[in-house]
């Protein structure tokens, strides 16, 4: 029987840390229970990174996630939600970090227009970043700004990964309105920064 880890009531990033601990002990299968969607999304990403299959069951208050190491003999294909990495598109080795909903310091309206124009220019450019990372009030752009959401859709079609800080969406109470991108966490966002040759911070 799989070991069951209870991460109910645990806020981000605790469920991920708990699951990571199990993976580090080379456990081939375990179940983790959580009570929020952000944790589910983060655990799915962890499974993908660590080559585990993941099966999710439950409703909006209680989720049960079954982790099974790929290649494990007990791996069952029934009722599994398989997450496969996307086909890799050649991208440039740099990322954009948007830590606020405007560019630079000074007048907000101007800074916000500059942000719109930045993403317009990025969407039209011939080279695209590996990923775009949104944190703190930067997450508002991915929820509330229709123009920027449009540009991000174009960038996503070109293979750019859009990661949005789940803690921040939660803090601003706009988690349910995310228009594009993947709800992410500090681990994935810092990992992207460390792996990139260049991080452009706006």
């Amino acid at each position: 029987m799989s070991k069951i880890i209870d991460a109910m009531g645990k806020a981000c990033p605790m469920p991920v840390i708990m699951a990571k601990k199990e993976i580090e002990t080379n456990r081939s299968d375990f179940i983790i229970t959580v009570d929020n969607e952000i944790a589910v999304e983060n655990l799915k990403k962890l499974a993908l990174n660590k080559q585990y299959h993941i099966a999710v069951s439950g409703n909006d208050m209680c989720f049960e996630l079954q982790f099974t190491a790929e290649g494990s003999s007990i791996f069952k294909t029934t009722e599994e939600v398989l997450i496969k990495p996307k086909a890799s598109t050649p991208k440039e080795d740099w990322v954009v970090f948007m830590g606020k909903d405007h560019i630079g310091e000074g007048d907000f309206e101007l800074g916000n227009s500059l942000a719109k124009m930045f993403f317009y220019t990025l969407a039209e450019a011939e080279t695209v970043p590996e990923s775009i990372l949104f944190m703190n009030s930067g997450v508002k752009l991915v929820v509330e700004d229709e123009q920027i959401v449009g540009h991000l859709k174009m960038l996503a079609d070109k293979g750019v990964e859009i990661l949005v800080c789940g803690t921040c969406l939660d803090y601003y109470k706009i988690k349910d309105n995310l228009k594009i991108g993947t709800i992410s966490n500090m681990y994935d966002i810092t990992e992207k920064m460390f792996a990139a040759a260049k991080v452009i911070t706006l």
Partner: protein
Amino acid sequence: MIMIQKDYYLIAFENTHSAMTAEGILKKCVNISMIPTLREISAGCGISIRFEDEHPKKVEEIFVEASFEKKRYQFYQISHKNGQIFPKEIDL
């Protein structure tokens, strides 16, 4: 990859404040984007407004209604040919 670029209308402004004011006037009634003023256009301001779903005449009417003076902006029609951009001034 060959990108087929859409033609569109652009409004350039005499200064940044005019561009921001125009955005405030238009954003509720016209589908617009704030874009950097094209290198091919010389204007006082680096911020332009792009739109494609509305006729410039209609946009001008909105400006007139809001008492946004004509001298503060210029309409352009932007077309593309062989990867080059051709802006054409429109006088309404």
